[in-house]
């Protein structure tokens, strides 16, 4: 329904403090969401995040292995990433984001919230539009 709470949940979950006010008001740089709410004509809209493909184009495109598959979850090693944006070029869902941290850039993407049973965006969704299931 396009409220955007999933974006907020993502930012908070991936902040240092995991406190909503701290994440938005104090932390610099402010974490950026790893998901997006797309809105189209006639009310179509959805929250979109990495689909964690089985044969991901992004991982194949990554020039130095910063993107990797860990137990079915596609992760980015931000310290290894060289910001060449091959993944941005490759992801057919547009779900890899450019992120600036302390003057240097790296890719950023959904990591399915390690340590949580259900990703934060799914948990917060007030309309059960987001569901977490393995396919």
């Amino acid at each position, binding site marked *: *329904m396009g*409220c*955007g709470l999933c974006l907020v*949940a993502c930012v908070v979950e991936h902040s240092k403090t995991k406190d909503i006010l701290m*994440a*938005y*008001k104090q932390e610099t740089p402010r974490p950026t969401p790893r998901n997006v709410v797309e809105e189209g004509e*006639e009310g179509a809209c959805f929250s979109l995040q990495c689909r964690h493909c089985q044969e991901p184009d992004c991982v194949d495109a990554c020039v130095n292995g910063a993107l990797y598959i860990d137990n079915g979850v596609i992760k980015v090693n931000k310290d290894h990433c060289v910001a060449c944006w091959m993944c941005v070029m490759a992801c057919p869902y547009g779900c890899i984001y450019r992120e600036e941290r302390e003057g240097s850039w790296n890719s950023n993407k959904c990591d399915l919230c390690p340590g949580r049973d259900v990703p934060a965006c799914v948990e917060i969704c007030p309309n*059960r539009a987001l569901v977490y299931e393995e396919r």
Partner: protein
Amino acid sequence: MVMSSSLWTDNFHDFYVDREQERCIQCLVCVRQCPYEANVYREAAGVVDSVHKNCTGCHRCESLCPTRCITIRTNPSEFRPHANWQPREIKNIYKQARTGGVLLTSTGCELPYPNYFDRILIDACQVTNPSIDPLREPMELRTYIGRKPEKLEFERTETGEVRLKTEIAPQLKCEVPILFSAMSYGAVNLNFCEALAMTAKEVGTYWNTGEGGLHRKLYPYGDHTIVQCASGRFGVSKTYLGTSAAIEIKIGQGAKPGIGGHLPGEKVNRDISETRMIPVGSDAISPAPHHDIYSIEDLRQLIFALKEATDYEKPVFVKIAAVHNSAAIASGIARAGADAIVIDGFRGGTGATPLMIRDNVGIPIELAIAAVDDLLRAQGIRNEVSLIAAGGIRNSADVVKIIALGADAVYIGTAAKIAVGCTVCQRCYTGKCPWGITTNDPRLAKRLNVEIAAEQLTNLIHGWAHEIKEMMGLMGINAIESLRGNRERLRGVGLTDRELNILGIKHAGE
């Protein structure tokens, strides 16, 4: 009609959005969710601001704000106190001076007329007539709606078995004495209709199409659907009548007795047009009266036409607004062959009605039911019809009280909407319901997740059913049948003799 400048009244808004800027993280959830554009992002200034005059007090933004920085408040700006010229009256005049139009509103009457439910108390058993523990003893809430025979006759078959000789009219079996009242597809959206239908099926009760027709998608719920035949006859066909559990002829509605309805053409999209069987974009106008009903005899013709069309297999209800002579009319309806009479009190809801009519026409359901029950009993025809009370039922105690006053069951509408999020902001008529209930804008309608809504409705019915059983237990009653018309178990507080007399109850202490 000239629209005058609105500037000089804009600041006299009813609500304001109290935003704690220190807590606002500018996530824009409130901006995205307000269909009235009461929250806006001022990009240049980098702040989220509110346009208070647009706020309808729906609380959508408040409910979703992740930092709870929003509180919706009534505007504290006060006019000079005046018993006669209350702010409400002043603002209404401003509105009309500006627009020259009829004041529109939604839901039921909001004025503080006496509420008899709140002046009736329920009796309880102590020592001499022990109460019943509903957790240990069976409690019967099942209710059959329909014409009951005066007496039962039996006969013996050739093989010697006893068989019921009396022919029983079609009955509607309700597992709880609570049904969902008529809310038309168009006034509400398909998601809400589907949630009602799913719930009705789940809990063993019925939902009502109103005069919006029955969307093809909901045909599978036909067994739990009451289809309405109203003055506009929208969506009425043989299939429609056949895909139902009962048929309801709507004569009047509590929120707007004596007037018709109007679904503006711009709301008639393709799906609604197909369901109502009218062209896309055409106004759906329900006339004030049925143009073929000017007497009880005419009504009888329609009742039997509908019975004929459905092979006498389905009960036919007639719904009227609670008015001064409801009792006499109800008697006529019973004699015209209806299986159930629905009386809709003046607090009953609506998707759109003129404010003056909603707040000034009709009578309370408590008085109407008591009067109708009395008259039908006096005339010895109470068994010929079931009585369904509608209009302003807020909780399970209201259900118990109205049944004790003489109803067989109740219809709930507004309560069902509240169960799925409605905050009674009374702006259904704008078609922009922020909760996705009374809107067919796909952007807004999707806010109502059918699955969640059905769960909430089911929970509500289950909760009320539990409470009703508890209350029956403390009265020492184990079947809802024994509660019906059992006015001895009610007492009034602060009521005049006249009121007690009409309600047919004693005063507390008697």
